[in-house]
């Protein structure tokens, strides 16, 4: 399993760059991970989504898809794409240090 350094800490990631162990993630790592996805500054709305991703993962063992995010995170789909233009569920999962959500919807 490849490793990388985020915010000065070595973490395990998979081939696509998603965290293997979400417990290795800290909030201090989010800005650096976000910057790699072209997100220069994390707003409160970004954090709402990031925390929602983590709580869903903790509860269900898998991150939410875009449709689930749109229905349950309190952030509408249009806005989700403004926050994470390259795919809200996928990019937010990367920034939130959880595995990539699986699901066709």
């Amino acid at each position, binding site marked *: 399993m490849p490793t990388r350094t985020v915010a000065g800490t070595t973490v395990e990631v998979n081939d696509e760059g998603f965290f293997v162990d979400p417990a290795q993630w800290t909030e201090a790592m989010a800005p650096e991970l976000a910057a790699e996805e072209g997100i220069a500054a994390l707003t409160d709305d970004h954090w709402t989504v990031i925390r929602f991703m983590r709580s869903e993962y903790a509860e269900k063992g898998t991150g939410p*898809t*875009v*449709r689930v995010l*749109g229905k349950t995170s309190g952030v*509408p*789909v*249009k806005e989700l*794409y403004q926050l994470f*233009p*390259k*795919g*809200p*569920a*996928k*990019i937010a999962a990367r920034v939130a240090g959880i595995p990539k959500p699986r699901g*066709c*919807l």
Partner: protein
Amino acid sequence: MTDADTHTDTHPDAAGAPSRPEPITKVSIVISKGSLDGVYPGLIMASGARAEGIEVNLFFTFFGLDAVHRKRSEHIKAATVGNPGMHMATVVGALPGMSAIATHMMEKKMTALDIPSVPEFIEFISDTGAGIYGCQLACDMFGFTQDDLVDQVQDIITVGEFYEMAAGGEIIFT
């Protein structure tokens, strides 16, 4: 260049090791059929592409236009005749009400899986930033104007304009 090199989509990196193929960055999806099984696959491919951050244009033509027709999009039906996948004898499928029953059964399963209805799905896909278009010729044939189509349809375009829009990406015909 060896023969093997010409038959691969991957390009070796500087060290000579094969790298990953280029990711897909844009798709244009044509939906040409107006049955339940004709409409959903294209919609799922569209929303799935947007989830991956892939640019998407959806182009509705022929009976596929029903999926974006104000009055018809809520009434997309499963085809029970001439559809071997239904595992139903053609004469049975042709009985009155059979399509409604099959549609109802399928919709129940789809609701259980949280698959949205066609109008809700179109709205969702539009909200993800996909472009949604109607086909000019098909609209002319059926006598539809943009007013007949749901608000998410951005424009009615010709096939030539579709190709211009699809430039630089993949085209998927359903």
